[in-house]
């Protein structure tokens, strides 16, 4: 039985403190631990990228299977209808074979889900720290502002990678093993590099945006709404300006449109001229948002350390 005024013995620490603690890693692990504790949300948010990965992997696999000489009859059966279907599939195979196309299409169709994944896990990271006063505990440690930012950034970027990099790598892996005599690696190996670089760029830009909004918000819900609102608001503004000024480049104001155009450019997907505009506007739009995000982040975190 424990005495009412029980005091455990205090044990002094005998070891050494590390001079340069790996603060970002500690924060990143803590962020992931928190996120993985909410399993239902994680399953719901990861479901679209997982389903997308399965579908696009299957398409790529089917494309290579057709290239390897699978006949329309084998694909569609011996009936007239089956032969027609098989014939259509083979006609379509040329396009389906193009892994670049699939990856660009994946980004186009999945970017909203990936953004939701990043926003859900990133929106609360800084806002909740401020709301709960955790920044007082964190900055009372030998933790630099850069270390704090990196820790939080790594957390949100990890979820961004689940949505934008891992699926494309899976598709590329399927393509590698499904292609005859490793032709995908030999002939289109650069696609993997491009997929990773494009995914990284998207993750870095979107994670920065979400964190910047989180640093301005007082709670996660506001940051989440702010992120979605900003992305769709910019897209709507771009659309309206395009309509009013008859200049298509205004569409680049919307991050979704800008990234879609960049994906088409990077993966060399042909775009109808009526839906495209000068690429430089897309890069300017994305870069501006990125720079603005980091200006906000640095300013906000500076204010967090210099507690009022």
């Amino acid at each position: 039985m424990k005495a009412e005024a029980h005091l455990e013995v205090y044990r002094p620490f005998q070891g050494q403190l590390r001079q340069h603690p790996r603060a970002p890693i500690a924060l990143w692990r803590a962020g992931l631990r928190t996120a993985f504790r909410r399993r239902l949300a994680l399953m719901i948010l990861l479901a679209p990228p997982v389903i997308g990965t399965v579908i696009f992997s299957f398409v790529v696999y089917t494309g290579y299977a057709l290239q390897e000489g699978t006949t329309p009859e084998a694909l569609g059966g011996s009936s007239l209808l089956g032969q027609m279907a098989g014939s259509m599939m083979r006609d379509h195979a040329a396009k389906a074979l193009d892994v670049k196309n699939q990856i660009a299409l994946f980004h186009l169709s999945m970017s909203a889900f990936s953004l939701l994944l990043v926003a859900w896990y990133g929106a609360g990271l800084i806002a909740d720290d401020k709301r709960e006063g955790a920044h007082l505990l964190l900055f009372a440690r030998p933790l630099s502002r850069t270390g704090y930012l990196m820790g939080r950034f790594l957390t949100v970027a990890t979820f961004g990678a689940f949505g934008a990099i891992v699926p494309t790598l899976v598709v590329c892996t399927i393509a590698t093993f499904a292609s005859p005599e490793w032709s995908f690696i030999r002939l289109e190996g650069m696609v993997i590099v491009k997929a990773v670089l494009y995914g990284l760029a998207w993750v870095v830009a979107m994670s920065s945006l979400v964190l910047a909004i989180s640093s301005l918000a007082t709670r996660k819900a506001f940051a989440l709404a702010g992120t979605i609102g900003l992305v769709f608001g910019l897209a709507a503004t771009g659309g309206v300006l395009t309509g009013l000024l008859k200049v298509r480049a205004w569409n680049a104001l919307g991050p979704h449109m800008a990234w879609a155009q960049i994906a088409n450019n990077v993966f060399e997907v042909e775009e109808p001229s009526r839906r495209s505009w000068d690429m430089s506007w897309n890069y300017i739009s994305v870069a501006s948002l990125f720079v603005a995000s980091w200006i906000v982040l640095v300013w906000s975190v500076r204010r967090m350390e210099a507690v009022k």
Partner: protein
Amino acid sequence: MTKAVLEFDALTKTYGKVRALEGLTLALEPGPTGLLGPNGAGKTTLLKLCLGLIAPTSGSARIAGHDPATAAGRARLRRAIGYMPEGDCLVPGLTGVETVGMLGRLSGLEPRDAMTRAHEVLDYVGIDEARYREVVGWSTGMKQRLKLAQALVHDPPLLLLDEPTDGLDPTGRRHMLELVHDLGHAQKKSLLLCSHLLPDVEATCDAVVVLSRGRVAASGQIVDLVGGSRPRVRFEAIGDAARLETEFAASGIVHERLENGSWSLTLGASESGAEIDADAALAAASRAGARVVAIEPERATLQQAFLRALDEAEAVG
């Protein structure tokens, strides 16, 4: 002379036109020290300056031998300081042991050491199985103890405790005061305890600093501050109060009539140089024909010393 653990030299901090600290010059020796002052006296500002969380407008400080004005100094001093902030400061989504472990890692502990230390300090503050639950939903008492645990996880020599008993019930408060007393005395930690509750400071600290309007109104050992003035006794007698007062005055005894009818007498050397003791008071009562009922030492409390220091600061400022 013992090396000061906290040194401030002409430290000034202003927020716009408001002067939170004004030319604060102070050296605190190791050991438990209370930081007192009315609201807006600059206590929290001083704590944040100690941590390097805010920069002074002018002046300098050395905290545990480190300069908070430089990034390297801040990193070193934060390794030497355990800070327990006021209010609910919690890392969202983590359990108690994860919170303390993570903050230990941020302080420079190796991952394995951080987890071991987290359990040790949680044992010390008396948080049992609850440490494996998320902190959200914990009682105020448990949150306060968790904040103390995270301040101790890297075993710093200096602790800054901001209102550690804030919001605690009597049992929790007693437990917290026992912990703070143990840390300050048995564990020989230097600690700066910021509190509005003067009995808490009196129960746990040896020295005290009283701030008023950003300046030091009084500082020193509590024993000296409380008993610094001449000894006083409470004197109770039945008889003619007017005659008694006349006799006291004739004997050179500084006296004060209390609300309950008794007297507060100041003993020791009088202004004329004569030594006044209890016998002199008894003789005066005898001459006045009064019957003495009680005579007992009147111990000044820290509250009296605190209020006196504030009054003096008010009069000067």
